Every structure is written in C-alpha cells, then in structure tokens.
C-alpha cells in the first residue's frame, strides 16, 4: 500500500491520577514499527497495551513523549487529524447506518465524490466477500460479519497505520481462528502498517511479524514470534508464551559460542552466547514438548499422566523438581502410568539460558 507509514514512539509515558494514587500505565516506552510491518502488543490485562493503542489513536493524551506517524508528531492531535484507522473490540458500527454507509462514512467526511465512494466501497465489499450485505444494518448481522464490516470501514481509509483493539475477543473460538487468518491475509495483501493489541498469545504468534510483550507499563521483550518462543529473555516471558519448565543449571565452561552446562546431573552443550561466567548458577528454559523419552540421560518417576488427544501430558519428578512433558502421541502408544519410572533427555537445541 502506497500510504503505509512508519510509526515511531519515543519515550512515551502516560500517568493516570485518581485521588492520591498515581499509576504509570505506560512508562517511558520507545518503539519503532516499519512501514507494512504487523506488530502485536501482547501482555496480561493492565499491562498498558490498550492505553498505548489509545494514545496512538488519539483518545488519550500522553503525559510525555512523542508519537510519529510518518514524519508528523501526532501526540497532541485529536483522532480525526491523524492518519490512522482502527478496528474496535466491539465492532463499534454505527447502528443507524447500513453496511454501505458505515464503510463510506470516512470517505464522506473527506468529501469524496459519489462515484469514487461507490467504487471504493464496492471494491472493499468484494475484497471482504460481502457484496450482498451492503443494505443490511448492524443489528441484522452476526458478530463475525460485523467485525468484517468494521475491518472494511478501517481498511478503506487507506491510512498510514491500522490499529486493532482486541478485535477478535468477542467472537467464538472457531470464528476467531478463521478471522485471524483472514486479517493476516488481508494485511499482507494490502501491506498496511498494523498495530494489534491482544492478550491472546496464539493470536499474537500467528499474526505478527514482531511481538512486543508488555508488563506493568513497560516493554519486556521485542522479537519475532520464533525468537520470543525460543529465546525468552526472562522467566516471565518464558511462562507467558507457551508453557515452560524453569530449571537451575551450572555453567561448567564457556568457549566462544559454545557453553557447557550441568543440568540435573547431566552435561549439555549449548550454542547460546551468554553473559554469565564459569561457575555461575543460572536458570534455563525447557519447553515441555522438547523432551524425548527412553534416552537414558535422566531418570524420573511419573506423577501425572493425562491423555489429551493429540498430546499426552506427563509430570515427572526428579530430584524434588516437577518437570512437565507434552508428548505428541495421537495413537496412544506406550503410555506410561503414574508411579512408573522412565528415562528421558532434554532436546539440546531447545535449552535456553535466561
């Protein structure tokens, strides 16, 4: 898309004051989003991601800091003066207008000719496969259909950045998956810079080029979904994204890019570059799905064994620590029972030092 803009946030802070309490909802955040990039702001509720999005949109005024959309600092502009469009959590369609007029609203404000409006609305309806819905009012449509209209209404503005405020959280699980794919495909087709707020990590992982994880008003980590998953920089992120076993290990030796550690009595060689020294005790992350059975590096006792369909979930006790294991085993072969002993090994490549 021609108009796609770079978004640059510099030292953005928002302080809310209620009575004597002062809450820093967003604390000195800086972030750059390249043109056409899709980023997700991900975090638990109260982490400041929504406040940040609302500042980008112009619904909240920052306490300090600046927001550039393209070359223009918009931090103190009202929403209507900004080159941004938004898809809302509860669709926010105008209940007194039909689909066509909802989508045409922004173009009418820009005083576009009737011909241009008809053409552009027609195109976007076609793109969304909603040609037959033009005359419907929001109350005559399902949640998924309403959200598509909401998306169309934002997309048609051809704005510099598209903002999403948890747009799928009101839909049922199946529709959510479908819409997720649709949003990603549309975004890639039109190439618009997109900033997407969600608390659903699966949504963030599957949609974005870059995930921004926030907590208590601060950014914890920025990275591609794979980086975030494989190399979380903190215990919080390791546990927040997917499931994780956090285990103690000791660094035995450190040579350029090769690090030897001792984990639960056995040695592993990692390719991580690390900031620690020989002899340090560190924490490592091992995902439950990167553990292999029947390889005798470690021996433990099964404490829990639950068949979940695609996967079989175990908890194994070893040296007073519980290790979660998730084994892909759709056919239910060689299931270990509670109380049995078994041997296993951690997948060397997936061990990551925090």
């Amino acid at each position, binding site marked *: 898309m021609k108009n796609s803009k770079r978004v640059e946030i510099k030292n953005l802070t928002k*302080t809310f*004051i209620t009575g*004597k309490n*002062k809450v820093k909802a967003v604390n000195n955040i800086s972030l750059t989003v390249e043109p056409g990039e899709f980023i997700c702001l991900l975090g638990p509720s109260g982490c400041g991601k929504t406040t940040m999005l609302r500042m980008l*949109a*112009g*619904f909240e*005024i920052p*306490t300090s800091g600046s927001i550039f959309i393209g070359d223009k600092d918009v931090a*103190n*502009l*009202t*929403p*209507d*003066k*900004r080159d*941004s*469009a*938004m898809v*809302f*959590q*509860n669709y*926010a*369609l*105008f*209940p*007194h207008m*039909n689909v066509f007029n909802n989508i045409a*609203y*922004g173009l009418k*404000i*820009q005083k576009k000719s009737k011909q241009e409006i008809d053409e552009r609305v027609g195109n976007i309806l076609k793109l969304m496969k909603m040609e037959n819905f033009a*005359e419907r*009012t929001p109350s005559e449509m399902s949640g998924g259909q309403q959200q598509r209209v*909401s998306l169309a*209404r*934002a997309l048609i*503005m051809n704005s510099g950045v598209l*903002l999403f*405020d948890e747009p799928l959280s009101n839909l049922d699980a199946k529709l959510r998956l479908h819409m997720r794919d649709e949003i990603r495909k549309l975004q890639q087709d039109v190439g618009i810079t997109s900033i997407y707020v969600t608390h659903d990590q699966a949504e963030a992982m599957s949609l974005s080029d870059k995930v921004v994880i926030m907590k208590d008003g601060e950014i914890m980590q920025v990275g591609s979904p794979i980086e975030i998953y494989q190399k979380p920089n903190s215990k919080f992120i390791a546990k927040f994204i997917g499931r994780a076993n956090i285990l103690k290990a000791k660094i035995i030796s450190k040579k350029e890019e090769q690090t030897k550690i001792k984990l639960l009595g056995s040695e592993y060689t990692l390719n991580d570059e690390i900031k620690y020294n020989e002899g340090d005790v560190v924490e490592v992350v091992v995902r439950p799905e990167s553990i292999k059975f029947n390889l005798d590096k470690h021996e433990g006792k099964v404490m829990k064994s639950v068949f979940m369909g695609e996967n079989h979930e175990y908890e194994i006790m070893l040296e007073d620590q519980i290790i979660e294991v998730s084994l892909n085993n759709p056919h239910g072969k060689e299931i270990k029972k509670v109380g049995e002993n078994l041997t296993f090994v951690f997948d060397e490549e997936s061990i990551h030092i925090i």
Partner: protein
Amino acid sequence: MNNLKIKIDQELKHIKKLTNDPTLFLTIIFSLIVVSFFVLVPLYNVLKESFTLKGVFSLENYKNAFERSGNVIIILNTLKLGFVTATLSLIIGFFFAYTTSYMKIKGKKIFDFIAMLPIISPPFVVALSAILLFGRQGLITRGLFGIKNFEIYGFHGLVLVQVLSFFPIAFLMLVGLLQGIDPSVEEASRDLGASKLKVFTSVTFPLVIPGLANAFLLVFIQSIADFANPVVIGGNFTTISVKIYQEGIGNFQLGIATALAMILLSMSISMFVIQRYYINKKSYITVTGKVSRARDLVKDRVITVPVFITLITLTLFVILMYILIPIGSFVKLWGINYTPTLDHYKYILDFGMDPIIQTTVLAVIATIITSIFSMVLAFLIVRKKFIGKTFIEFTTIMALAIPGTIIGLGYVISYNITYKIPFTNITLIPPLTGTAFIIIIAFIIRSLPVGIRSGMSSLQQIDPSIEEAASILGASSSKVFSSVTIPMIKEAFFSGLIYSFARSMTLVSTIIFLISAKWKLLTPTVMNNIDTGRIGIASAYCTILIVIVSTVMIVMQIFISKIGVKNKAS
C-alpha cells in the same frame, strides 16, 4: 505536590487539545457562561440580598424571618405540608406500584396513564377541580349534600390536591424499583420456608426501603417548592413559596423575600443532597441484578377483586378531577347555573388570545433550544474531559432541586439593572425583566436538567467506541455529534422535546415573577381568573392549554414511531 504538577500539566494538555477543535471549545465556553449567568448569578444575588439591609451587611432579614411569628408559622406550615403530602403520596404510590407489579389486575395501562396526567397539565388543575367539587359552590359539597359552610381552602384542601398531583411521582419511581427485583430472590425466600407475608416483610420490603426514602424526599421537595396549589387553594394557610412571591412582588420587600428564599433553598438542597448522594448509594437493586424472568403474579380473586376496586375508585377520582375542568368551561356559572354555553371560549377568542399565542410561541422557541442544548450538555458531560465539567454537571442537576420561585426572584433581582462593560459606559446587557428573552431563558433553565439527565442516561448505554470510530475516521467533534451521537439518542432527544414543551407551557412558579404588561402568559392569566372568581374562563384557558400540550405530545409520538419504523426498514 508532584501529582498536582502532573495533573495541572495534563489539564493544560486537555485545553490545548480542545483548542485544536474550535467548535467544541466554543461550545464549552458558551455552556459555562450560560450556566453561570442564568443559574449561579441569580442564586448568588438572592444570597447577597438576603444578607443586605439598606446597602450594608446585616442579619436583620434572617432575624425577621425567624422572629416574626407570622414567618415562623409559614416555615412550620411548609414543613408540615411537605411531610404530610409526602407520607400520603408514598402510601398511595406504593399501593399502586405494589399491586400492579405483584397482582394479576386488569387495566394497568390506565394507571400508567394517570401517572402522565400531572406532566401534561398545569400544576393548579387539580386545585381548580377541587374548588369545582368542594368549593362554596361545589358540586359535591353544595350540590350533593347542600353543605354551605364547608371550607376547601386551607391545609386539608392543599394536602388533597398535592397528594393527587404528586403521588404519581412516587408510583413511577416505586414501580420501576419493584419490577427491578429479581423474582428468584423472593422464590429463594419461599423455598427456604417463608410464608408469602414473611417474603414481603423480610425480602421485598427491605429491598425497596431506599426507594421509599427516595420517593418520599422527591415528593417532599416538590411539595415545599409548589407555588400554584398553595396560592390557589391554600387560603389562610400560607407556605414559604407563596410568601416569597407576596413579599418580593407584592410588597417589594426583597430583604425578607430573599431570606425566606434562602431558607426554602437550604431545605430543598439538603433534601436533594440526602436523596442523591446518600440514599441513592444504598440502592440494592443494582446488587440483585437483572430480572431473569417474569414474576408469578397473585391471582387469588379474594385479594385481587377488592384491590382492583380500590385502585379503580382512586383512579376514577383522579380522572374526574381532570375531566371536571373541560366540563366547567362549558357551563354558564358553576354551582348556580349549569346551562351549557360557549361564552367563556367566546370571551377568550375576543379578548384573551394573547396569552395563548405568546405562551405557545415562547414555549416552542424555548423547546427547540432546550432539546438541542440539553443533548449537547449531556454529550459534553458524558464523553468529554474539560475543566468545569463537574461544575456544569453539578449545577444543572442541582437546578432540579431549586424551587422555581427562587429562580424567579433571582431573575427579578439580577436582571432589572443594566450591566455595563467595566470602566466604560457601554451597555453589555440591558435590563431583561419584562422581556420575552428572560421568559425563554426561564423556560430553558427549568426544563434543561431533565433533558440533560435523559440524554446522559441514554448516552451511558451507548458504547463510546462507536463515537471514537467516527472520530478516528476523520469526523470532528461537531460532526461526530451530529452524524452519530444525535441519531443514536434521538429517542431521548424527542422525549426531551415533548417534556420541555409541556413543562414550559405549564410552568408557573418562575415566570409569575417575570410577566409584564406586554408578555402575559397563560398560567398567570388562569391564576388571575381563579383569583377574581371567574372560574369558567379559568377552566376554558386550562382546557385550551391541556389540548395544546396533548396535541403536540400525540403528534410527536406519531412522528417518533414513524421515524423509528423507517430506520428499521432501511
């Protein structure tokens, strides 16, 4: 200290943001000026005047108010009237509300209808009917029983007409409350072994106690502020409102009038504050939540039949009070000569059309302004952040509790002088008393609070993100308001329109202070005619007034249902 600094900084940023949107900014400034100038300034002047004697500060006026035995009796009268009227209205209102919500009774629509009557009729209609029924030439007292020395004028007559006028307030409030109680709460009590009586005493009644207190205080405020009924039927039983008028306009004793006004105002405001900020918080209905399903109504005929008879008797009596007026307007001389005639209407047509035309024209102008302005204010209060927002919200809602006589008195004191630009001789505002302008302002200020409230409550039910969506699509604040907000709250807008028209047409207390030789309005004209014993003409005026108001209401209702249908079809 640091917090304060951040706060100031943020407020400055809000102002800066507002100036980016000039229409919004000017609207806010305009609203602040209007509210200050036409609500606060008059009140301040009343307060100042009450502490002034011969141009210097003095407590003499209050000393007079509390020491002269006549005045003390008037204050006590007012309290007694408020208490008795509120208690009786509450009992009748609760009876109506409880039986219609809990029993299978026919004709519920009629009860809703009589609740509407006091809104469309001028406040002294019931008083006028009471005179027709129980006065010296009364249909019942003299016609039926031949009693010659029965006196309707006085405390008992006043209580009768006030209760009939105000119990619908209690009824409407309590009916909403009782229907908001989840029947499953009562079923739980039954299930745990309570008898039906025990359910009432241990569950239902305790749940509505805050509502009862609320209704009591609202009726109390109405009763002590009432001007029209006491003046028409109070006789020697004088209340503060009447006395304020007599002293302020009749004797031009502004000192004592303002002191009495401040006493009345402090009563009303304190009741209002208790009602709004104390009792309202104690409401349980929000805790019990939504009504899950319909209540099992009492069907036992042993109970419902006598209850129905009582209800219908009371209702018919109320309706009779309203029907008597048109009947009275078509007879020669009530109590003496019941020959049908059109004389009274002919007289009005020949000599007295001015008040009707003037009132209607001014009311229409005021209505249009009020309904737009109240939606704008509701929008600002609910959706925008700006300095002075709390001030506007508080003042306009407080204006509900300010008795009309006090606003009237305040206008007389404040606007009979010329305001000049400081240090110059240029007139900023000429004297406004006696002009149509100040009458329109009075109409607006008196109906604004209800309009704002209904606008606010419908806005609060609409997700703000719909307006945010419009704004991020490029619409300025005024465009958002006209293209999205107004269409979504159009029902509140039109019901506000109807209300302010009815309210303006029937307003008495405030404008009685503002009429002049040029602008004689309808309600004061009716009162003059009652005062001089021309009951037939008074009745004819009242009938015309009720016809105008109800015609406008019906036409508007049809119009609303039409646009409602059109909207759904498109």
